[in-house]
């Protein structure tokens, strides 16, 4: 009986984790020719999001942001995941550490339902 209960507990925990993981919205950034696409990424305010950065260049790049306090090296033809937020509405800059003049972008955080 105790074993069944333990297994049920693990199952419930697993389902909870899965639902929690699914609740995090996912956004994708592509790095190509040392430019980020899209260069302006809109995300909802007060919510944690999963940002997937896909480096399509043939050189490594470091996704870097002082505003978001994040830095992650992404190897050529690889994807990397960075969690950001929850953030207050505003504009948060990011750049490619190795090509800071060209690889630049912004995360624009908006309240849900906020129109341009």
């Amino acid at each position: 009986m105790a074993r069944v209960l333990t297994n049920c507990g693990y199952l419930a925990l697993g389902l909870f984790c899965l639902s929690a993981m699914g609740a995090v919205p996912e956004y994708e950034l592509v790095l190509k020719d040392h430019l980020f696409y899209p260069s302006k990424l809109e995300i909802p305010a007060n919510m944690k999001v999963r940002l997937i950065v896909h480096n399509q260049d043939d050189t490594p790049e470091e996704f870097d942001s002082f505003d978001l306090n994040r830095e992650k090296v992404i190897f050529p033809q690889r994807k990397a995941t960075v969690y950001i937020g929850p953030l207050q509405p505003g504009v948060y800059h990011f750049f490619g550490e190795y090509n800071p003049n060209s690889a630049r972008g912004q995360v624009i955080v908006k309240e849900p339902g906020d129109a341009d």
Partner: protein
Amino acid sequence: MLINSIILFLRDALPAFILISVLLAFANQQQRSLMWLGWGTALGFFSAVMLATLVDNLSELAEGAGMELTMILLQCLAYGMILLNLACSVGRQHNARLWQLTAAGAVLLTLTLDGANFLVFFVGFWTHGTSPLALMLGTMMGAAVCISVAVLLYLLCQHWLAGHRVWLCALFLLCWSAGQLVHILPLLAQVDLISPLQAVWDTSQWIADSSEMGHLLHSLFGYEAAPSFWQLVIYLLSALGPFAWLYLSKRQDNAAHLLGEDL
């Protein structure tokens, strides 16, 4: 590219120069052999090359958190090595071999952590770079800045140690290592292993993290323009906690020594 290379030096190479300067000042003042420097730098360069080679696959592990977890582990080990080293330099522990081992270990781990990032950048640009001259100039200027800061710091530490202000040197080394240690929190938040960090204050209007001064202060003391509450707590505990312990234990030792002489 020029400024970028200099900033990369300030961020990734300067911490290793700072650590070596302070340890070298301690070693010279306490007349210790320089074996630790040779072993630490040689093994550090080797392991930085190894990590730079493996980092591509390493970062895919643990659902993409492999690199962050490796960095956190190495950072914690480096902090532990520095604590043990200080215990040998200014605390109760007077084991000369332990001093050598921990100094070499701290240099090895710091070079591994910072060197790997450095190599990823340089190898990428030397093979595909479009402006090798700017990269070369940036490398030379960055190296010159790091060497200058290291020499100045070495002279300052020697001055402190010669004037029996060993505690200032120890406090500086602890602040430096605490600054390196608190960097693990944003890494943990980045891979969603801890809750997001909320800034307690923001001084980026005065000294921005992205500025040259911000990079320099970050390398020296772990400066953050917008630190979180837990970063502050860990910084203070990891810098002042061991400092207080070393100071009090040394005072007790001195008091016991004086009492012994009186008897």
